[in-house]
């Protein structure tokens, strides 16, 4: 299994600003994923991030709003740009296990936009 850390664990941000969330994995992984979880809701996949290529975004999510970097096999960042209160959520990153099926999750970043 992989151990995943995220920074920051939480933040309170002003409307119109941007926040970059970092995700670090303790081993090399092929695929990393970014999810959003709104209060009391399930997880929605934002995008998948493969090292050395552009991230693949799900319907309803665009690169201008959620730019993602994946500079190496152990690290990724998600930026939430031009934030509004509707962006208040928990943002989670994950990585595929060796089988490619199961995923290992970070502890999440709780974002509040005021």
């Amino acid at each position: 299994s992989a151990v995943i850390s995220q920074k920051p664990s939480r933040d309170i941000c002003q409307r119109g600003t941007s926040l970059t969330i970092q995700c670090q994995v303790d081993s090399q992984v092929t695929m990393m994923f970014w999810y959003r979880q709104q209060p009391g809701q399930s997880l929605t996949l934002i995008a998948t991030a493969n090292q050395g290529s552009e991230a693949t975004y799900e319907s309803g999510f665009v690169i201008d709003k959620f730019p993602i970097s994946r500079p190496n096999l152990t690290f990724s960042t998600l930026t939430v740009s031009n934030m509004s209160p509707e962006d208040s959520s928990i943002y989670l990153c994950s990585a595929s296990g060796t089988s490619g099926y199961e995923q290992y999750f970070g502890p999440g970043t709780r974002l509040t936009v005021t």
Partner: protein
Amino acid sequence: SQQGEEDPQALSIQEGENATMNCSYKTSINNLQWYRQNSGRGLVHLILIRSNEREKHSGRLRVTLDTSKKSSSLLITASRAADTASYFCATDGRVGDSGGSNYKLTFGKGTLLTVNP
């Protein structure tokens, strides 16, 4: 839209009792997985059942899969207060169209389980 739908949305039981959660999905699957999320934290992978399997056990967990009904159930036996968490089913689909061996997950809405001591 979400692939999986769990029921019940919330379940409250006493310690020692069994807890059963159900999940339904809409399209064909490769595998179905169950995850646990303690309040405000990341998800923990519990168990994976393949589409050609009907039942799987792991410790106090028992998962069944009925592909004809597009449904799965998670049974936790002899529950403990520490089992209090949200439980999500997730189905997987390939990342992109080029094949490969990595899969993205689509999560259901989850069941909030409360085990009272």
